[in-house]
């Protein structure tokens, strides 16, 4: 356990520079976006006021300014997409850099006097913590940017939104910030299961190289089949036999089976088949 925590801390530190850059990029881009968009809106408002149009006329014709005016632009979504893509690349990079760096660090990692599966767990935990960290920080940023909006746009032209409204007015934010705890476990459970399966696929490739890519794809395919088997049965042989809640429970079980299979297989590969 102690070694797992040390390894996780080590992995987190290795990613810290990129991570801080991502956080900085998100905050800076979203803040600049808010300032530019709100100033542009306010200059339009001032222009209309100078032309003698009433405030009511302006809010009807120009519309009010709300947080959604920012979330629909690249200023807001861009850094989120960049962060997601970076983390997706990092799922692969977190393993491959140990083999392909200037110095082959994988020798050292595999010779640490601890269960090798701890490497797997430490790398997975790093990804999970990074994802959850970014998601939480984005919430804080939304609150800060909302306060900034109140400073930049006067009450009369502003439509205030709660955090919940901001999130649910924007399609894919609902995936990142689910509406219920069950939906949270579904979304993030599937995400983390995918990370586990991808890690196992990477280990297949690292053990068997070219042939391993095929094994990895096969493993991912079988995992997917196992995971969605309740749905497949439901729509084919069982003819809508289960209630939705039963399907949910069955998929939670198949999800756990996939995660356990992934951990077991990775444990086997790291101990018996891995090569530097």
């Amino acid at each position, binding site marked *: 356990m102690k070694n797992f925590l040390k390894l996780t801390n080590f992995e987190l530190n290795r990613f810290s520079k990129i991570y801080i850059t991502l956080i900085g990029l998100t905050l800076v881009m979203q803040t600049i976006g808010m300032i530019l968009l709100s100033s542009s809106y306010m200059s339009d408002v001032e222009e209309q006021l100078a032309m003698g149009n009433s405030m009511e006329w302006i809010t009807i014709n120009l519309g009010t300014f709300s947080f959604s005016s920012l979330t629909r632009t690249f200023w807001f979504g861009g850094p989120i997409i960049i962060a997601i893509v970076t983390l997706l690349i990092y799922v692969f990079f977190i393993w491959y850099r140990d083999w392909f760096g200037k*110095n082959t*660090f994988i020798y050292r990692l595999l010779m640490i*006097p601890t269960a090798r599966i701890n490497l797997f767990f430490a790398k997975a935990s790093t990804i999970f913590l990074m994802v959850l960290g970014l998601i939480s920080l984005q919430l804080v940023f939304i609150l800060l940017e909302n306060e900034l909006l109140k400073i930049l746009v006067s009450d009369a032209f502003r439509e205030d939104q709660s955090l919940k409204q901001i999130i649910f007015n924007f399609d894919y934010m609902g995936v990142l910030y689910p509406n219920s705890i069950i939906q949270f476990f579904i979304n993030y459970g599937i995400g983390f299961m995918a990370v586990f399966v991808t890690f196992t696929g990477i280990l297949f490739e690292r053990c068997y190289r070219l042939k391993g890519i095929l094994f990895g794809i096969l493993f991912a395919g079988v995992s997917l089949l196992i995971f969605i088997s309740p749905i497949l049965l439901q729509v084919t042989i069982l003819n809508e036999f289960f209630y939705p809640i039963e399907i949910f429970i069955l998929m939670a079980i198949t999800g756990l089976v996939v995660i356990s299979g992934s951990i077991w297989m990775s444990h086997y590969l790291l101990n018996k088949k891995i090569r530097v």
Partner: protein
Amino acid sequence: MIEVKDITKKFGRKKVLNGVSFTANKGEITCLIGINGVGKTTILNAIMNLTPINSGEVLIDGEKIHKESYEKITFIPDAITMLPQMRIADAMQFMADFYQSWNQVRADELLSFFKLDPNDRISSLSKGNTAKVNMLLGLALDVDYLLMDEPFSGIDIFSREQIADVFTSHLVEDRGVVITTHEISDIEHLIDKAVILNDGVVLREFNAEDVRENEGKSIIDVMREVYQA
């Protein structure tokens, strides 16, 4: 004792090790000798469970390698196994964090012996100094067995001399050392036991002192006989 028992290893269709067996004792320096590509590094990797073998087994003090074994045996590969952005001090801290067998007093002794600055980044070190740091990270572990892969390869004469001095010092005394080389001349006088490899098999395993006394031959003489036979 390290026992390598009839190990075979294939890379694709190519059989790199074809039933290799030998033993390496504590308190002795055992040298695996052979030309490049003969499988010396693969044997060391196999001993450390860093590559799977197709058959045979490796025992360390009668046991198959397991996680605790890495407190008892260590491997110094031919390239340093620490991140380039680390300072020497960071690398030592990493070792101290993960190994109970890390001996900081010995590490400090090695730092001054090799005249290394702990604040230097690994990426900024010369080839010779990188090899010395690599050596330091292995030697500062209180382990019974040390495996070294080509420790003299591609480094300057003075660094070679310094590293060779380590073998005759208390830093290595009482430990079992397995070393690979394709240039025997630098360390011939240090070797207790030689294992000559070719085409994935052990051609001859002998005690250097016995051969010197009984047959009046050096290791190079035996190599000449074996390879030219």
